């Protein structure tokens, strides 16, 4: 057994090494870059500036605007996905003929590249010749008005991610013991009571897990908005990832752009920490 005790690390090492190179090292490096004044366009060599970039960030209204847009996008899309996903899960949980085919269909929005779906939605959102306005008989300037554009991106995200939430919740529903439902039926409980007293409390951990995945994913949103609007109009759809990308790869400001990147990381870490804390409380 002695050999066995020594071996596990050898199996872990390749994955750990690779992950170290592509995640841990870059993360440490991005923190370092964020302390530098460094622009690819600047002929002067990079210089260490301490926390200057973070001071600039605190005073940067475009950063706060992007943070606000991101928070709005996350809050609205994730809550809609949860409500719709729960409805779908309840409708789908019992077996029926053709369920496999329907599963295939509801996997589609999730499985298609976001950049590709965004192109499809961009085409449907087109104000003059788009099918959405045609079907609704409306004249909505979906992607062109500051009031609508971010909501249009939310709409696309809800379409794309609700099936994923529904699938997770179905798995959660199936792990609830059927005895509980039978007992409730014997007691003559209404469907609403069953949902409130049995389904939701027992589903709570799975709901939290789904929320965790979706919140973090939505917070990182990039592809959809890059393709749909590029951040406009009037920066009304510029999220943190989009702003960071523009700062890094269009303005070529690697120092300040890295400070933005670190801020995204810090937000995601905070969110994940909060969820894990909640999840622990619930499971205890």
């Amino acid at each position, binding site marked *: 057994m002695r050999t066995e005790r020594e071996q596990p690390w050898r199996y872990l090492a390749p994955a750990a090494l690779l992950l170290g190179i592509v995640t841990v090292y870059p993360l440490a490096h991005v923190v370092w870059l964020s302390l530098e004044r460094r622009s690819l*366009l*600047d002929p002067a060599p990079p210089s260490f500036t301490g926390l200057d970039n973070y001071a600039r960030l605190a005073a940067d209204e475009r950063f706060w605007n992007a943070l606000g847009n991101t928070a709005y996008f996350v809050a609205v899309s994730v809550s809609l996905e949860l409500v719709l996903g729960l409805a779908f899960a309840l409708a789908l949980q019992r077996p029926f003929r053709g369920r496999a085919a329907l599963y295939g269909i509801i996997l589609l929005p999730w499985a298609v590249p976001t950049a590709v779906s965004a192109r499809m939605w961009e085409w449907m959102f087109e*104000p003059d010749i788009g099918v959405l306005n045609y079907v609704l008989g409306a004249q909505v*300037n979906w*992607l*062109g*008005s500051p009031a609508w554009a971010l909501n249009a991106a939310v709409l696309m995200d809800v379409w794309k991610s609700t099936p994923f939430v529904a699938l997770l919740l179905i798995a959660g529903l199936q792990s609830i013991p059927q005895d509980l439902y039978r007992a409730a039926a014997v007691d003559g409980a209404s469907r609403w009571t069953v949902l409130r007293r049995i389904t939701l409390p027992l589903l709570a951990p799975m709901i939290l897990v789904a929320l965790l995945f979706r919140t973090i994913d939505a917070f990182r949103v990039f592809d959809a908005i890059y393709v749909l609007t590029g951040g406009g109009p009037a920066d*009304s759809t510029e999220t943190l990832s989009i702003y960071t990308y*523009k700062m890094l790869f*269009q303005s070529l400001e690697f120092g300040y752009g890295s400070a933005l990147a670190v801020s995204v990381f810090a937000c995601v870490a905070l969110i994940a920490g909060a969820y894990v804390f909640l999840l622990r409380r619930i499971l205890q």
Partner: protein
Amino acid sequence: MLSRRRFIATLGAAALAGCGRPARERGATTLVFKHGKLFGDPRALRALIDEFERAHPGVAVREETLPASSDEQHQFYAINLQARSEAFDVLAVDIIWVAGFARAGWLRELGALEPGAFFDGPAEAVTWEGKAYALPWFVDAGLLYYRKDLLEKYGLAPPETWHDLVGVAREVAGRVPGMHGFVWQGKQYEGLVCNALEYLHSNGGAVLADGRVVLDSPQNREALALMTDLVHRYRVTPASVTTATEEPSRHLFGQGRALFLRNWPYAWRAFQDPSSRVHGKVGIAELPRFPDGRSAPTLGGWQLAVNAASLHQEESKALVKFLTGEKAQRRLAVAYGFQPARPALYRDAELLATQPFVGRLARVFAAARPRPVTPQYVRVSQVLQSDFSAAISGLRTPQAALAHAQRRIEAILGAD
């Protein structure tokens, strides 16, 4: 740390060069010429390059194309030039990049321009601190397209001022149901800056003057106010202009649903297609101006430059001179309908005979104004895009948008 990275980069580049390039002919020099996709048959450009090779024995030229998107090309060049890559020798640069690339020391200085050989706009844009860092290749500039048939029907003349345009557009739109007055490019992107500057410049306004930010001026306020009024007050421009890039605006006009269109010369070819609904009904004019200003189309276009890290400086310079020379520009204009950067060619009989439309653009290019020439242009443009977009979508008043942009651009240039 840095020097080690540079060392590794050099090693990597050497390894790549070894496997990526086809075996060189012995003693021969291979120049790599990077450019965006050209429309039409690539053979016309290749034939020119073959001619250059014959005139320079021992020099071979290989073309490598990049995606058409200007942002993508900017990213590619910046990254590679910054790493002092030797992987390409001659490159085609967008007019707005020259100053930034030149200040960074990435482009070879090409000496003084022959006076009068190129249009003033491109000549200004390729010059940084008194020296040329690229030579103009093609020019582009905003044009006003109008429905000749409708203006004739109602006995109206093409507008000379923006106010004329509003008057004409309202009159015709009132008589033809479903007809938009004037469509242009209002999405938050580089094209919006091109459009908005045409109003500012044609009212005597500017963004920068002698290195100072002069955005928040009475002329600019009046100009931007008129631009936003087109949408919100006069309603000659549909609100959906805030999503429009070149193509959606061209489609609206091409469907016969707009009286006026602001676009680049490329749109002309599409309207000449016999199956187009507006075939034979389209006229072009210089963009309107304010009563006290001059028509000021925004200048676009591509220039050729030499990578400062190229190992073949003299050969590369010769190729740039050759391709931007009169003969080459004439040939490319005839083959592709692209617009030469040399005014003399607009009097050339062969060109006028084969591309009569190009011949009509000389006045437009002579009047064309570059976007602010500053090494920080990309960042300045991001501010302008966002604040112009805010004004056009009604989120900020023109006055507030200009004041806001003024402050933000001052911060960018001040920190520089």
